[in-house]
């Protein structure tokens, strides 16, 4: 009896300790998730009670709202160009910095710096001005004999601003790759050198396979984060998503539907479509991972 009492006591204590998370999860996450699913089947403008419309919001989204498709397209370009570029840079620089030198600390700091400040309004304002008609980027293009680009007039050029801003912040992924590189046993490289493997072979046969678990993790987290990008699109386009919806990232369009047009039902439906997309992509990465992620088997 006393054992069972002790176990009960420990369970109660356990729940007492995690109660902040539990309460917060129920109030600020679980309940809102359920509410947003319900709202996605309604028409709701905050001022009059929600009215049930069934699948109408989803129907409008898929068949009657070109802006939705545009913003989805912009977001996919942003994610599928930005994330691979960002991870490639992160890996490249991590490889460059993975050596013993007293200067490493300084370089690492400098390359990481953009990740720390990159999410701020100040940096988005800075980026906007770098790409201005008379900005640094155009001056650099002119210097190399190229013509200025009107970054705020062309939708794809404007999206390019957002992509470069995201790639510029490769620092946190670089740190994770660096930690991964440090974990590769040097004995593997020594053995390969003895067998006469060159730098490229060592990279393809040792470094890449050993890093794939880290790459997997980064790929998933960065993709999800990219789908949630809001501040740069909002600031760079001054909240409009222009030109011609070129920077209308999904979260910005959702925000506008909800808080500019008070179309809460539609915004909730958009959120669920996004959740489905993110869940599908994550599942896809997970299920394909057994073909490309290398897990060390423990040898006795």
């Amino acid at each position, binding site marked *: 009896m006393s054992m069972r009492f002790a176990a009960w006591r420990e369970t109660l204590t356990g729940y007492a300790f995690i109660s902040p998370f539990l309460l917060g999860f129920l109030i*600020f996450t679980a309940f809102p998730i359920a509410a947003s699913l319900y709202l996605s089947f309604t028409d709701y403008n905050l001022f009059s009670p929600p009215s049930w419309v069934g699948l109408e919001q989803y129907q409008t989204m898929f068949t009657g709202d070109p802006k939705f498709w545009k913003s989805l397209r912009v977001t996919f370009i942003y994610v599928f160009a930005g994330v691979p570029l960002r991870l490639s840079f992160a890996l490249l620089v991590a490889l460059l910095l993975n050596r013993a030198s007293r200067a490493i600390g300084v*370089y690492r700091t400098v390359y990481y710096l953009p990740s720390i400040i990159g*999410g701020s309004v100040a940096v988005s304002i800075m980026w906007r001005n770098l790409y201005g008609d008379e*900005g640094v980027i155009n001056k650099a293009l002119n210097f190399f004999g190229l013509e200025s680009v009107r970054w705020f007039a062309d939708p794809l050029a404007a999206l390019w601003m957002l992509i470069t801003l995201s790639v*510029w912040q490769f620092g946190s992924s670089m740190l994770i790759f660096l930690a991964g590189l440090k974990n590769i046993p040097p004995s593997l490289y020594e053995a390969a050198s003895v067998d006469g493997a060159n730098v490229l072979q060592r990279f393809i046969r040792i470094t890449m396979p050993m890093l794939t678990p880290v790459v997997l993790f980064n790929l998933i987290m960065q993709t999800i984060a990219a789908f949630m990008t809001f501040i740069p699109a909002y600031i760079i386009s001054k909240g409009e998503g222009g030109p011609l919806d070129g920077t209308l990232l999904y979260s910005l369009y959702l925000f506008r539907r909800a*808080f500019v047009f008070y179309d809460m039902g539609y915004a909730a439906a958009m959120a669920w479509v996004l959740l489905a997309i993110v869940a599908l992509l994550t599942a896809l990465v997970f299920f394909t991972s057994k073909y490309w992620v290398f897990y060390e088997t423990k040898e006795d």
Partner: protein
Amino acid sequence: MAGRRLRWIAWHLAAAGGAFLMVYPVLWLFLSSFKKSELIFVTSGSLIPDPWVWENYVTGWQGIGGLHFGVFIKNSLVLVVLATIGAVLSSALVAFGFARLKFMGNRFWFSVMMLTLMLPFEVTLVPQYILFSELGWLNSIKPIVVPAWFGAPFFIFLMIQFIRTIPAELDEAATIDGCGKFRLFWRIIVPLIMPAMATSAIFSFYWRWEDLLGPLLYLNRPSLYPVSMALKMYLDAETISNWGAMFAMSVVSLIPVLIVFFLFQRQIVEGISTTGLKG
């Protein structure tokens, strides 16, 4: 020998060249803030201001919308401090529960917590707004500060990882000495996980300082605006005459972030490397 030396030089050139490209935009922002407002874009190709002027900081600091820039900094600090204290303390409590107490549902709720790390914020955005508006919390900092006191999954995970490195014998010894769970947590675990709590506090500081969406949704009165919203006001009122002020105040808004970064970069680097999560 000569080949080695050459490779060493080439490596430094590549690393330093890349590093210069990385900081160039920030350097440009910083130095442009000392240029005369009307010259910023005329001379955008060169970094060095000619002449050097302070006036952007003077006009910028006078503020916008009838509010002194110091007001926005104070508002930001209040938000950051209240949210950070809450997030760090509550996360430590939860982390201890997950890491050290055996109870039914421990693993289940831990998985739930890790899943919320991957949940796009858009899914809860609209209902949260409705919830806070029903509670009458609009136009106050409560919707931004209060949820922070219910634990942040990222910090909880970071601290769990840290607690797991502390030998369990310590808990057992304390329990035998008649120490209750809360005393064990407060007297023994908390002092030991200070580094993880510090790392969490640093990240919390960054996210709150830079946050725009929360203030954009919940604060309508400029007198409550944090720095991020003040900069947005500068941007909305963008004209040739205030470019300089906008640049100068952007620099000012980055200074606290940079100071914290240079003071605590070891903790930041370790926090990212050990959790593998983005900062």
